[in-house]
């Protein structure tokens, strides 16, 4: 489950990004991508390509791990045995997705241990939505439906990107996410077509999650030459706003269809332009939360640290001195 990458285009000029790259190799690399070919781990690639991909895939992997925490909260209290089984399967899927993604990032030269270190020490980011709590069962339903839906919009786009290992991981991930989406939709529909109390519960959850969902795709991109290059290299597959539009277009009608409302009086589709109009969510809140001041940032990292700490003796006991780590192949 992941929104759009928080690619920090730091305003560097194009010539400084490409400064010490071999022009012939760079031209070959760009021609390969333009022809629709994939880049594989040991191919030559510009430093900026490697850097942004590591950052992006790593954030994605962390998001899968941390994203399973708010939902995991509800496993013990899921209403009914079937839902409990389904939720466990979903949470297991998410953790599995992280494994696939860490492997893809490793092929670019950053070890899994370094990535885990950067996560638990707060150096790496993960998707902002997971810093919010899931106070009711309906919240877990809204997460499973709409956050996963947003993730699918993003992941489908990224699976057409240029880096082979990331695309292959995303193909597997998208196949599993389709179950999450159906499962989440089923849960929301069950509540929305239920008793008045159930309807109210799901409406309140939707109200709580609307702003995080709008934040999910990231702030509007500033047009820059840097992001143009990342688009040309098929690292970034669409602007944050275009992903948000795709999501709104697919899911707002489905939400309204259930007689539910969204807490934005300006939300409507402009039939002439085909674009959705909405109130910009508060991007200061977004920055606050991403920098560690959200309601659950501390808890998420503390739980992740606990897992690392309590699992350490098991990993140590299993290690054999003669075993040497090698970067995975593909």
């Amino acid at each position, binding site marked *: 489950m992941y929104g759009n990458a928080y690619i920090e285009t730091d305003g560097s000029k194009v010539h400084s990004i490409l400064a010490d790259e071999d022009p012939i190799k760079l031209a070959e690399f760009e021609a390969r991508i333009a022809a629709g070919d994939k880049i594989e781990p*040991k191919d030559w690639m510009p430093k900026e390509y490697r850097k942004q991909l590591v950052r992006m895939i790593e954030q994605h992997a962390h998001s899968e791990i941390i994203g399973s925490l708010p939902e995991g909260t509800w496993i013990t209290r899921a209403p009914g045995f079937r839902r409990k089984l389904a939720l466990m399967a979903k949470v297991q899927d998410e953790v599995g997705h992280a494994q696939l993604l860490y492997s893809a990032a490793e092929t670019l030269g950053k070890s899994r*241990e370094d990535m885990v270190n950067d996560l*638990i020490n707060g150096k790496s980011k993960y998707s902002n939505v997971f810093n919010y709590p899931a106070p009711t069962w309906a919240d877990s339903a809204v997460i499973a439906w709409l956050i996963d839906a947003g993730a699918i919009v993003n992941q489908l786009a990224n699976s057409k990107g240029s880096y082979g290992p990331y695309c*292959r991981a995303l193909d*597997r991930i998208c196949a599993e996410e389709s179950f999450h989406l159906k499962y989440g939709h089923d849960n929301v529909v069950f509540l929305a077509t239920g008793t008045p109390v159930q309807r109210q519960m799901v409406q309140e959850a939707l109200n709580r999650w609307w702003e995080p969902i709008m934040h999910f795709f990231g702030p509007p991109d500033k047009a820059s030459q840097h992001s143009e290059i990342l688009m040309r290299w098929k690292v970034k597959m669409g602007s944050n706003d275009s992903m948000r539009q795709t999501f709104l277009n697919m899911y707002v009608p489905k939400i309204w269809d259930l007689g539910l409302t969204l807490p934005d009086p300006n939300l409507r589709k402009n039939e002439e332009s085909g674009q959705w109009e909405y109130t910009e969510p508060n991007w200061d809140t977004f920055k606050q939360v991403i920098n560690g001041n959200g309601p659950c940032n501390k*808890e998420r990292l*503390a739980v992740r640290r606990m897992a690392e700490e309590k699992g350490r003796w098991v990993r140590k006991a*299993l290690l054999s001195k003669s075993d040497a780590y090698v970067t*995975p192949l593909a």
Partner: protein
Amino acid sequence: MKINSLDPRISRAELDDESKIGELHGSEHFQTYEVFQQIKRGTHHQHVGNVHAPNAEMAMLFAKEQYCRRGAAVNLWVVKTADVFVTEYQDADIFETTEDKLYRDPNSYKVMDRINAFKARTNNA
């Protein structure tokens, strides 16, 4: 401060919200294994990805969890990544002449023209 969570299991763990643990070290790396899955008897095993594991038995266990969660699979191989020999993409030219060797291609053998010509010749004779 102790973390007070919506999840009672986490509250019971009495986690400190500022605790820091030491960094993991390179020596805590498991090896990687490449995973090959056979979907159905009679088909080839196909590479599907890799897992980190301390030994082959656990690699097998992780591979089953990771790559055989849904749909059919009848067989699984795991191979230490370090034991796989690979070609480099930059050496892809070693395969270049393969497609030029048309004498190994059944479609490059066309005999009907000759047979027809021969028949026409002998019938007329």
